[in-house]
């Protein structure tokens, strides 16, 4: 396996003639946490949708574990071990918490270990075990994010993309979810954090990239980026 688990090369993406991502390139080193930050509308979510196969890039290449996955359908990409936790959790609201989690193990390769994985998810988020038979639509925003994370873990991915995981959540819950994410990373899963909550995600990550108007405008190891650099890149001034 190559050193980078994910490599995005000159990706552009459009909705009709609306240019959402102009020219984005970045790498995710194996077993690292990488954050992509930027204001609303900077193109972060579209870029993640391109990587996960939800949206087709109009140009550029995306490599996962050394293989070209550009333009593959989403169901094929998750089978290869790349999972996206989408913005707003997108739980299956008319299904129970446990059914949501089991759906995560839908890829053939993930079904075998599903039972033990389910126990692991319940260990990580004990509240989900309590609510296993509740419809996910009845949960709070934070609990739904936990379901979404757990569901993603069930596919036993090598890389998880988190799209705006902290959006709309209370600070204590965000803190809790972030500590779980670090835990997931410590067990060997590579992580991409797409965030508007800049300080927290930079602090959590090994590498950071700032996106502005569809381009990556600043990249570097998180501890080497100064607050001033990040602020200027973030606002573009």
């Amino acid at each position, binding site marked *: 396996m190559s050193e980078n688990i994910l490599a995005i090369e000159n990706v552009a993406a459009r909705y009709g003639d609306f240019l959402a991502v102009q020219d984005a390139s970045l790498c995710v080193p194996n077993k690292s946490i990488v954050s992509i930050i930027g204001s609303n509308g900077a193109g972060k979510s579209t870029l993640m949708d391109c990587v996960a196969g939800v949206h087709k890039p109009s140009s550029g290449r995306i490599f996962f574990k050394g293989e070209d996955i550009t333009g593959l359908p989403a169901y094929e990409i998750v089978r290869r071990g790349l999972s996206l936790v989408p913005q707003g959790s997108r739980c299956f609201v008319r299904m129970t918490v446990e059914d949501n989690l*089991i759906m995560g193990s839908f890829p053939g390769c993930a079904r075998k270990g599903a039972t033990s994985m389910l126990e692991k998810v319940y260990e990580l988020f004990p509240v989900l075990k309590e609510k296993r038979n509740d419809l996910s639509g009845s949960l709070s925003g934070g609990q739904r994010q936990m379901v979404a994370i757990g569901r993603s873990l069930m596919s036993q991915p090598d890389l998880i993309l988190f799209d705006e995981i902290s959006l709309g959540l209370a600070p204590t819950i965000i803190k809790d979810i972030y500590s779980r994410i670090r835990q997931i990373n410590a067990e060997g899963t590579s992580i991409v954090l797409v965030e508007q909550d800049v300080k927290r995600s930079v602090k959590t990550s090994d590498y950071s990239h700032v996106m502005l108007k569809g381009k990556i405008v600043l990249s570097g190891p998180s501890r080497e980026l100064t607050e001033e650099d990040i602020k200027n890149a973030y606002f573009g001034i």
Partner: protein
Amino acid sequence: MAQQLINGILLGGVYALVGVGMTMIFGIVQLTNLAHGEFIILAAYLSSVISVGLGLSPLLTLIITVPLMFVIGYILQNVLINKLMERGSEPALLVTFGLSIIIQNALLLIFSADANRLIVSFQALSIPLGGMGRIPVLNLVVCLIGIATLFVLNLFLKKTYIGRSIRATSDDKVAAALMGVNVKQTYGIAMGLALATAAIAGTMVGMIYPFYPSTGSGYLIIAFGVVVIGGMGSITGTLVAGFIFGLAQVLGGSNYGLLIGYLVLIVMLAVRPQGLFAK
């Protein structure tokens, strides 16, 4: 009165079966399958041909018609409807309307407009209930098969990976794709299942009522009623809706049956348009 209640309840199980395929396609594929009634009648004719040809009881023909209709549904969805749906829901809706006309006329061409009926050995048997009337064995069997089909389908949707993927797709197809579900293929499976239920429904209604190539539209209307009253995606709702519709129709007799059924429908649409059991 007691006899009518019995008849109505027994009819309900079949009506639920007539409606469940329509409900599934409505809820999962988000398509109104205007050919659903014709598929039911097509299955009744298939059953008749196989039953006569092989000398089988109509009930045993299900072994052939159910898988056959599943395959027809799966292929239809994958080859035709999925592609049309990329261009919006109207073209697909029109094509199901076209299919209903094609099936109806093909049946007319092959079988003429004469009435047909599936005959079983226990046709005339009934169980006396003291002074309360009688339970016709045929209607009882048909009702139980209807309920059993819904029960098995429900179990399949709740407990298997494919069943869960169907429910997940109907909740949020993008999220389902992110879980590894091939959404278009899932639509195909859903259509296959819907036509498999239509196959059973066809044989059931063919045993209790005479049918012609043009009877399909009547069953489409019943299916619509079941969708509206039961709400989408709820098997319990479908069953209860079937009973309500069956009772309403029997209590109204041959003159007012449909009328009462539709009054119930209108009241439902006005008071609770999401259906009795929608969540």
